[in-house]
């Protein structure tokens, strides 16, 4: 197998060779890889230098990444940290499955999420312009987390304590949750703090769950409304990480609020204990509002309730929007999409009242 041409930060001599040969395909591949790296602050200087050597700027690189038609590429981070990203290329779009289950699950999950956004809402990838979907697996050592780093997906292996080993790529709702953080970043750009941060979390849970429901073709009544079902490690006891239907009941350490009476007003003070002002606790409130609206409307949740939330996220919120702003915007969107006197608008309004936001 040839060495992946632009693993990590490409050696300067390799880039020089590309520049000399003037091979357009190779140059595009180099620019795409660099675009994926530009969000990584630690590597900014190296990326800027390599872009100069390729005779391109950041915008050009992002443009190349955007013309990828949602193409998937999976890398192995080899247990490295931030500086090891993306890692060694192990599977590209259209390549057959490999032996490593994490690679195939990351590939399939990115594909399911892409198809959902494209088929249901007409959105072409994370940025709406066909952005390449890059995933890196095997990040860190026994790493109990998966995240969107601003330009790509990153998956740890799990330690067995919070997540079972191999669990972080097992649930498509978790994968879609993280990819939706990318959609939010490129649309409403909700601040990751207090209420805007809890909304940021909630939109990720909403579309995470909808991707799973869409895959299973479930109605709102049939869905389990769980995030991270069946992947909990030994330190957590329960069914899932979170329940949108019954916030606070998914496991023994689940303290999610299901209405404003349980709102946790934690400070956003850079103390890791306070979770950016309780973003993972208070997201239960808008989560339950979505569940209530979707079940009241009935049918497939992605069709009406999901459409209302999608339009709200991508067109009607701003970085500092709070719960009240989200409630008002979803009610207005429901009226615009389905009629001011429609059952959809009524259901959305009743849902926000039920959870105490209105």
């Amino acid at each position, binding site marked *: 197998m040839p060495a992946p041409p632009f693993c990590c930060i490409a050696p300067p001599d390799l880039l020089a060779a590309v520049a000399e040969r003037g091979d357009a395909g190779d140059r595009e591949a180099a620019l795409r890889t660099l675009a994926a790296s530009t969000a990584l602050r630690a590597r900014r200087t190296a990326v800027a230098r390599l872009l100069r050597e390729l005779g391109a700027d950041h915008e050009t690189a992002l443009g190349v990444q955007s013309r990828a038609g949602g193409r998937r590429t999976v890398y192995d981070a080899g247990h490295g940290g931030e500086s090891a990203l993306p890692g060694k290329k192990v599977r590209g779009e259209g390549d057959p499955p490999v032996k490593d289950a994490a690679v195939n699950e990351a590939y399939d999950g990115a594909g399911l999420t892409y198809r959902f956004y494209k088929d249901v809402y007409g959105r072409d990838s994370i940025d709406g312009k066909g952005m390449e979907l890059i995933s890196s697996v095997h990040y860190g050592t026994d790493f109990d987390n998966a*995240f969107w*780093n601003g330009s790509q997906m990153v998956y740890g292996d799990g330690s067995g304590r919070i997540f079972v080993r191999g669990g972080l790529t097992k649930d498509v709702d978790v994968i879609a949750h993280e990819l939706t953080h990318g959609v939010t970043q490129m649309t409403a750009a909700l601040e990751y703090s207090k209420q805007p941060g809890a909304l940021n979390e909630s939109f990720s849970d909403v579309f995470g769950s909808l991707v799973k429901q869409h895959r299973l073709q479930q109605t709102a009544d049939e869905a389990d409304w769980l995030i991270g079902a069946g992947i909990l490690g030994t330190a957590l006891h329960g069914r899932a990480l979170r329940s949108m239907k019954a916030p606070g009941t998914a496991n023994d350490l689940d*303290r999610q609020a299901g209405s404003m009476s349980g709102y946790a007003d934690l400070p956003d003070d850079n103390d890791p204990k306070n979770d950016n002002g309780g973003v993972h606790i208070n997201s239960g409130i808008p989560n339950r509002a979505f569940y209530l609206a979707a079940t009241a409307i009935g049918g497939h949740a992605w069709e009406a309730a999901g459409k209302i939330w999608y339009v709200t996220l991508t067109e009607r919120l701003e970085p500092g929007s709070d719960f009240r702003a989200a409630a008002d915007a979803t009610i207005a969107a429901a009226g615009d999409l389905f009629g001011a006197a429609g059952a959809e608008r009524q259901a959305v309004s009743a849902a926000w009242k039920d959870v105490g936001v209105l």
Partner: protein
Amino acid sequence: MRVSVVRGGGLAGLVQTTTADSESLAPGDAETLRRKVDEAGFFDLPAEGGPAERGPSAPPDRFAYAVTVEDADRAHTVRRGEPDLPDGVRDLVDWLSSVPGRRESLAPPGEPPPP
């Protein structure tokens, strides 16, 4: 020497606290702990760093760390987002997460760790 690592955030949003004390570690591990703290230049690191990790621009679902080392008459805490962990501190945190004799607890956000 005593070290504690408080890790919050991540997809789960839970707070994991890991502590170890030289006296509860095997002699070889206690030596390794001291060496890793020295190699990280821990007591010379700024208490805060990576300003982009703070407040509204914090990246979603990333871990955040507060690492405290107490040694004789001095104590120092370093707070960083996971992408901004200095290599030496990342190495210390990774090592601590599996060393025999450590204590680990898990709690919801905003609550003190269980006894």
